[in-house]
């Protein structure tokens, strides 16, 4: 067996990635900044998130009671979001942004669960890191923890229907879910700050240029990393993945 070798390769690869990304954690990036959405929009997005959050709580409760065995995977998916959303990666536009990491968990546990996990991460960043914000928590939750995961889940289901290889489905789900998150961020900002000249569309083009274009290479990175994680889980967490319906039946 190549298992110990596999472990060593994975470990070395992990160290390499850490060395690449570790020194880059500088400056602000991502999420709508505290105070940059008018109150009305803060309330609106917050309200939109509530039903999803509640559905997420029930979904996690179901996981805990009915599929207790898979709890470790849920915790790992949460940890994965923590790691990815701390990595601010330079992009082709000359600014940095970070991936979301919510797509992978959505594929395994359904998009609602990721709403709760996303809120935890966003709260951590808003309270301790002055990154994102409490007033914009609702808007950021909607983009990162609802819109992204739901799109990712949808993409994965479509790929499954088309009998595409699992890795391709995972890649597309994580990648497009990530990209979609930042498209939504751009839409949210454009709605709140329509340009006096071109209105909503002009603002949207502006914010899309800032968020979505920056995000394209990062979305590809997130897709690739998601495939790596799934490959590892497919070899070591077969029982859990079968119980979740990802493998087998």
């Amino acid at each position, binding site marked *: 067996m*190549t*298992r110990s070798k*596999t472990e060593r*390769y994975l470990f070395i*690869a992990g160290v*390499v990635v*850490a060395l*690449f990304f*570790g020194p880059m954690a*500088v*400056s*602000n*990036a*991502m*999420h*709508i*900044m*505290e*105070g*940059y959405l008018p*109150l009305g929009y803060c309330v609106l997005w917050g309200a939109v998130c509530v039903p999803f959050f509640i559905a997420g709580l029930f979904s996690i409760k179901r996981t805990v009671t009915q599929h207790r065995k898979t709890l*470790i995977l849920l915790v*790992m998916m*949460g*940890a994965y979001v*923590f*790691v990815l959303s*701390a990595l*601010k990666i*330079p*992009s*082709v*536009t*000359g*600014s*940095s942004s970070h991936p979301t990491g919510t797509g992978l968990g959505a594929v395994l546990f359904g998009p609602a669960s990721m709403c709760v996990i996303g809120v935890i991460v966003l709260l*951590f*960043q808003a*309270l301790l*890191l*002055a990154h994102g*914000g*409490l007033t914009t928590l609702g808007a950021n939750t909607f983009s990162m923890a609802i819109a992204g995961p739901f799109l990712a889940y949808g993409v994965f289901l479509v790929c499954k229907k088309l009998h595409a290889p699992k890795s391709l489905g995972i890649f597309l789900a994580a990648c497009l879910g990530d990209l979609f998150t930042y498209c939504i961020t751009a839409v949210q*900002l454009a709605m709140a*700050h329509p*340009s*006096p000249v071109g209105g909503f569309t002009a603002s949207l083009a502006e*914010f899309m240029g*800032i*968020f979505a274009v920056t*995000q394209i*290479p990062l979305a*590809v990175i997130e897709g*690739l*990393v998601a*495939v*790596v994680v799934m*490959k590892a889980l497919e*070899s*070591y967490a077969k029982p859990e993945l079968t119980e979740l319906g990802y493998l087998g039946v």
Partner: protein
Amino acid sequence: MTKNMKIVIICLVLAALIAVVPLLFIHDSEFGGADGAAEEAIAAIDPDYEAWADPLIEPPGGETESLLFCLQAALGGGVFGFGMGYLICRKKYSKKEQE
């Protein structure tokens, strides 16, 4: 090397390349956050808009902020690694799988 290993290595190398290439080819940029760029865009679109809330606690500088971001990544990495280690060893030591 198994087929999976090859896929894993190719994915990681590609991911690292995509992150490093902008650093090599764009020199006149500090790679500031895209949300900073958005703040400037808002100021350009709507010069009268003022941020009406401030973060409750703001790290005093880049060093403290990077500490907290490292902490976030370390927490996540630690928990994820623990889970992975558990799963790997479970497979390694379970007799069923070894036959």
